[in-house]
């Protein structure tokens, strides 16, 4: 079956049921969704392939830290959706509030299991308007579900804990992922939403959705991402990195066969994440074995940031490092050596934003006398890691 077949089935069974409630409040029924998909007409969700029956293309920085396009087959999308439906319990009653970017796997991947099972999607324009999020949560259902990145969870816990707790009886499940969530926040969520299934998921655009753990299980294992899901296998390589097999994997990077071969070998994706599998068969992620910095789920290659910064007049040397922020978790900091010139950091930031995505532009800037380098002249990144 293709995704279109699933939608067709629902369009026949429940033609007038709301399938998608768009950001502007427009309600699109299953009959409408099927019609638009069949005619390749527009929907308020990304359609990056040529049609709904072809492969999908998602942009990512991904496991190698370089921007590229990932090709995801229909079969992989369906396998990912089956993983989520099976593990998280999507049903025709599910009302999924998508509060994250729809061009990022975290939000994008929830479209399909919801529509395949005949549920309802509520699309939001991110979490900028927290009140819009809560208005969505006011929807008349006790089967609400959502995906929130750890930074959004931290924001809700900090500024709206009581309001979030007031939806305890309505939120059936909540998923997080894309970046590590602190154990403190996991425990606080369990306290506020005692009856809600709370999932921490291991996924990437390349591997698909591989593992997931309901941490509202009385144990709340820190850093745990759970066991491999229905269509996935996960194991640890001899070097301690995480590798994944199964039908959720990407087909490859678009027009990049050599790059694809560096991560996809014999039907197995080799990630740069290090981790281990515990006595219960659950995956734990420890961090990354490369220089890539995870900014709220977006992966940043520091070299790309440094190369752009070095093009700014007056900057003689620099290094981009991860900096801890109380709300945002890891943010980017640029240490610069200028040789005496005083440079306005806003000017540097704006210069960098001309060619880099906003999440790749460092938040903080610090002038230093020297940038640490190893004996062979390479940037000594390890010396800046805490």
């Amino acid at each position, binding site marked *: 079956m293709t995704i279109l077949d699933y939608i067709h089935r629902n369009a026949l069974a429940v033609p007038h049921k709301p399938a998608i409630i768009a950001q502007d409040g427009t309600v699109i029924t299953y009959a409408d969704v099927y019609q638009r998909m069949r005619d390749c007409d527009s929907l308020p969700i990304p359609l990056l392939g040529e049609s709904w029956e072809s492969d999908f293309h998602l942009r990512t920085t991904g496991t190698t830290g370089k921007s590229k396009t990932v090709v995801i087959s229909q079969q992989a999308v369906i396998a990912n959706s089956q993983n989520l439906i099976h593990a998280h319990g999507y049903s025709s009653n599910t009302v999924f509030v998508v509060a994250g970017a729809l061009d990022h796997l975290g939000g994008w991947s929830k479209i399909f299991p919801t529509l395949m099972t005949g549920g309802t999607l509520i699309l939001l324009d991110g979490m900028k308007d927290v009140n819009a999020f809560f208005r969505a949560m006011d929807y008349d259902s006790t089967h609400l579900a959502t995906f929130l990145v750890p930074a959004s969870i931290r*924001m809700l816990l900090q500024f709206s804990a009581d309001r979030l707790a007031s939806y305890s009886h309505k939120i059936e499940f909540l998923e997080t992922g894309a970046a590590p969530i602190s154990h403190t926040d996991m425990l606080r969520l369990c306290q506020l939403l005692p009856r809600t299934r709370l999932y921490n998921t291991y996924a990437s655009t390349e591997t698909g959705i591989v593992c997931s753990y309901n941490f509202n299980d009385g144990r709340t294992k820190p850093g745990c991402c759970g066991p491999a899901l229905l269509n996935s296998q996960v194991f640890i390589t001899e070097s301690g990195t995480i590798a994944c097999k199964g039908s959720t994997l990407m087909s490859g990077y678009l027009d990049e066969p050599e790059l694809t071969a560096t991560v996809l070998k014999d039907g197995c994706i080799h990630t740069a994440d290090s981790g281990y599998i515990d006595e219960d068969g659950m995956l734990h992620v420890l961090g990354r074995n490369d220089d890539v910095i995870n900014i709220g789920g977006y992966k940043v290659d520091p070299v790309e940031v440094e190369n752009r910064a070095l093009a700014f007049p007056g900057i003689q040397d620099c290094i981009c490092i991860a900096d801890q922020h109380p709300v945002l978790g890891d943010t980017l900091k640029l240490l610069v050596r200028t040789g005496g010139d005083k440079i306005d950091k806003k000017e540097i930031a704006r210069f960098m934003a001309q060619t880099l995505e906003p999440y790749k532009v460092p*938040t903080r800037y610090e002038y230093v006398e020297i940038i640490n380098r190893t004996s062979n002249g390479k940037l000594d990144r390890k010396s800046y890691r805490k």
Partner: protein
Amino acid sequence: MREEIIGLLDDLLPLVDLESDFLFGELSSLDITTIMMVLSEHYNITLSHEDVTPRNFRNIDSIVEMVQNKR
């Protein structure tokens, strides 16, 4: 207070034009969270999601007014 708030926020939001009259439109959700966090800690005030309105974040003066009303 206005200059103090600009100084506080400028450090964490280098891409944002804090003097803009369309500030809310320029801010991302993380920018707003950052502003809420910084102001609540620095001025020891309680801010909640109900304070995140286009009116309160219209420009730097409306942010200053919000802080003054919370003290």
